[in-house]
C-alpha cells in the first residue's frame, strides 16, 4: 500500500513539474490537429465571420462545423490563443492585441486603416436607413433623426462606436462644433419617442449611440426593437413603413440589396464590423484566404499540414 502510494505520488509530481516547466521547445509541429474555436450561434461576430468566409450556413448551425470545436466568448477565445499553439479562432478586430497573431485575410493585414480604406475584406458594413423626407410623425422627429445621423459622423459618435468593438468611419468634427446646425437639440424633447430597429447585430452599437446622444439632444426617448437586417428597410421605407412596427431609423449589417434602394440621401454607413482570425504567436501561418478558413471550420483541413501543404 505504502509503495503504491509512493509510486502514485512520484508519477504525479513528475507530471506536475514537467507540466509547469511547460513550453515545447521543438517548435511548431504541423502534424498536430487544428483546434477550432468559435462563438456560439447567437453571436453577431460569428454570423459576420461565417458569411465573410463564404460559410454562411454555419452562422447559426453547429452541425456543419468540424467535430470537437470549442465554443467560447470573445475574451476567452483571445486568451485561449495565448496558450493553445495549435488553435485558431476569430474575434472582433477591436479586441486584437499583440499577445496573439492576427492573420492577414487574402493578403491584407488586419488593422483599422485597412478596414477604413476598404482593402481588408473580413468585415461587413453597418448601414442605416431613414424614412423618406417628410414621411415622419412630426417635423420634430425628423429633425432629431437628422441630428442623430449628423452625430454618427462626429468624433463623439466614433468614440461610442469604437467602444462597442466596431470600426467607425473617419470623422474630424466634434458634436459641439456642429450642434448649432441642429436647433432641435436645444429644445426639451423628453416627450418625443424615436424608434430604432433593423439588424440585431447592430443593436448594441445603436443602443450605445442613442444612449450617448439622447442627453445631447433634449432627452428624447429612444425605443429599440431590433429584429434583423431585412426589417431595417422594410419598416422605414418598405412594406411595413406604416404598420405597427414602423421605425424612424433602421439598420442593416450588410449592404442594401437592389430591392432596398431608398430615396436619395436616406441611406448610409455608420461603421464597419471587422473580424480577425487569430492563432498562437508560434504559429508559422501569417495569411489565410476565405477558402482556407472555410476548409478549417468545415473540417476539410484537420491538421496544420493540410493547410500548409494544400
Amino acid at each position, binding site marked *: 500500500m505504502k509503495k503504491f502510494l509512493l509510486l502514485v505520488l512520484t508519477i504525479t509530481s513528475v507530471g506536475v513539474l514537467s507540466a509547469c516547466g511547460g513550453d515545447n521547445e521543438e517548435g511548431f509541429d504541423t502534424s498536430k490537429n487544428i483546434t477550432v474555436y468559435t462563438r456560439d450561434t*447567437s453571436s453577431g461576430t460569428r454570423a459576420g465571420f461565417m458569411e465573410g468566409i463564404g460559410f454562411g450556413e454555419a452562422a*447559426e448551425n453547429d*452541425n456543419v462545423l468540424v467535430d470537437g470545436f470549442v*465554443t467560447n466568448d470573445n475574451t*476567452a477565445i483571445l486568451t*485561449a490563443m495565448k496558450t493553445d499553439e495549435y488553435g485558431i479562432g476569430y474575434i472582433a478586430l477591436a479586441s486584437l492585441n499583440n499577445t496573439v497573431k492576427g492573420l492577414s485575410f487574402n493578403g491584407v493585414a488586419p488593422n483599422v486603416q485597412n478596414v477604413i480604406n476598404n482593402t481588408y475584406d473580413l468585415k461587413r458594413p453597418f448601414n442605416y436607413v431613414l424614412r423618406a423626407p417628410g414621411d415622419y410623425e412630426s417635423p420634430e422627429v425628423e429633425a432629431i433623426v437628422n441630428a442623430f445621423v449628423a452625430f454618427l459622423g462626429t468624433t463623439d459618435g466614433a468614440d461610442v462606436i469604437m467602444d462597442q468593438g466596431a470600426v467607425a468611419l473617419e470623422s474630424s468634427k466634434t458634436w459641439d462644433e456642429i450642434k448649432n446646425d441642429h436647433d432641435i437639440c436645444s429644445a426639451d424633447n423628453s416627450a418625443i419617442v424615436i424608434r430604432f430597429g433593423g439588424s440585431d447585430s447592430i443593436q448594441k452599437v445603436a443602443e450605445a449611440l442613442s444612449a450617448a446622444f439622447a442627453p445631447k439632444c433634449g432627452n428624447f426617448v429612444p425605443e429599440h426593437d431590433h429584429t434583423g437586417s431585412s426589417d431595417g428597410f422594410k419598416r422605414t421605407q418598405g412594406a411595413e413603413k406604416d404598420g405597427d412596427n414602423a421605425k424612424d431609423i433602421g439598420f442593416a449589417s450588410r449592404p442594401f440589396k437592389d430591392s432596398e434602394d431608398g430615396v436619395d440621401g436616406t441611406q448610409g454607413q455608420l461603421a464597419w464590423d471587422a473580424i480577425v482570425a487569430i492563432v498562437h504567436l508560434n504559429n508559422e501561418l501569417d495569411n489565410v484566404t476565405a477558402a482556407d478558413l472555410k476548409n478549417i471550420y468545415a473540417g476539410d483541413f484537420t491538421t496544420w499540414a493540410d493547410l500548409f501543404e494544400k
Partner: protein
Amino acid sequence: MNTSTRRKKRVDQLIRSVFLVATLLSASFIIIIVIFIVIKGITPFITNNDGLGVVNVWTFLTGTVWLKGTAFQSNLYSIGFIILNTLYIAFLTLLLSLPVGVLTALFIAKIAPKKLAEFLRTIVELLASIPSIVYGLFGIGIILTFVYNLSSVFGIQSKGGNSVLATVLVLALMTLPTITAISEVAIRSVRKDIEEGSLALGATRTQTNFKVVLTSAKSGIFAAAILGIGRSLGEATAVSLVAGNAKSGPNLGLFDITTTLTSTMLQGLKETTGVDYDIRFSVGIVLMIVILITNFILNAVKKRVGNVNVK
C-alpha cells in the same frame, strides 16, 4: 400581570410576527422562482414555438447533440449527454476535493498548533467567500495553461486546456473550502471521551484520528460532501470559462472538452430569443430535478452510514 410584563409580551409578539413575515417573504420567493422557471421551462414542450413545432421530451432528455440543425429554425434540442457530463464532473470533483478537504479539516481541528489552526481557519473562510468569477479567471489564466502543458506531457493534444480535467480542478478548488469548513466543525465536535478511550487503549494519535475521529464524524463529513456536490452541480460562470462548451457528447475523456447543464444555460443567454431562450429554462428544470435527486440519494446514504452519534 403588571404593565411591564404585558409590554414585554407585546414586544415579544411583535418581534415574532416580524420574523413570520420575513420567513413568508423568503419562502414565497422560492415558490415564485420555481413557478416562473417551470412555466418558462415547459413552454417549449407544450406550445408549437412560433411554428417550429413541439420539442419532444424524450429526445430532449436522452439525445447526444445539443441542437440539430440551424438555431431558431430547429426544435431538436437534447441534453441527455449533458446530464451525464454534469454528474460525471460532480463525481470526479468530489473524488478530488473530499479527501483533500477532510484531511485539511483533520489537520486544522486535531493536529495543527492552536495559532496555526486559527490562521488556517480564517484562510478557509476567506476562500469560501471568493466569488465564482474569480475562480473562473484563475482557471482561464492558470489552470488551462497547466492542463494544456500536462496533456502534452502525456502526448495528448488538448484543446487549449479546455477539458473535463480543467473543469474538475476549478470546481474542486471551489468546493474545497466548503467541505473543509463543514468537516472541520464535525471533527471538532467528536466527543473527547471517545478519542481518549482510543488513546487509553494504546492506539497511536494517527490511528485514533483516522479510525476513531473520522468515523465518528462521518455524518458531518457526509453533509459537507452533499453541500460540495451541490456547489459543483450548480456552478455556471467558472465552468463555462474552462469547459470548452462541447455541443455533443457524452464527454468522458479527461482531456476532452465538455459541458454542464449550467454552462449550457449560460451560453449565449444574453443574445438569444424565442425557443432557444425558453429551452434554457427547461434545462434549469432538469438541473433542479438532478440536484433534488442527488441530494435525496446522498441523504439516504448518509442516514445509513452516519449512525454514530455526533452533534
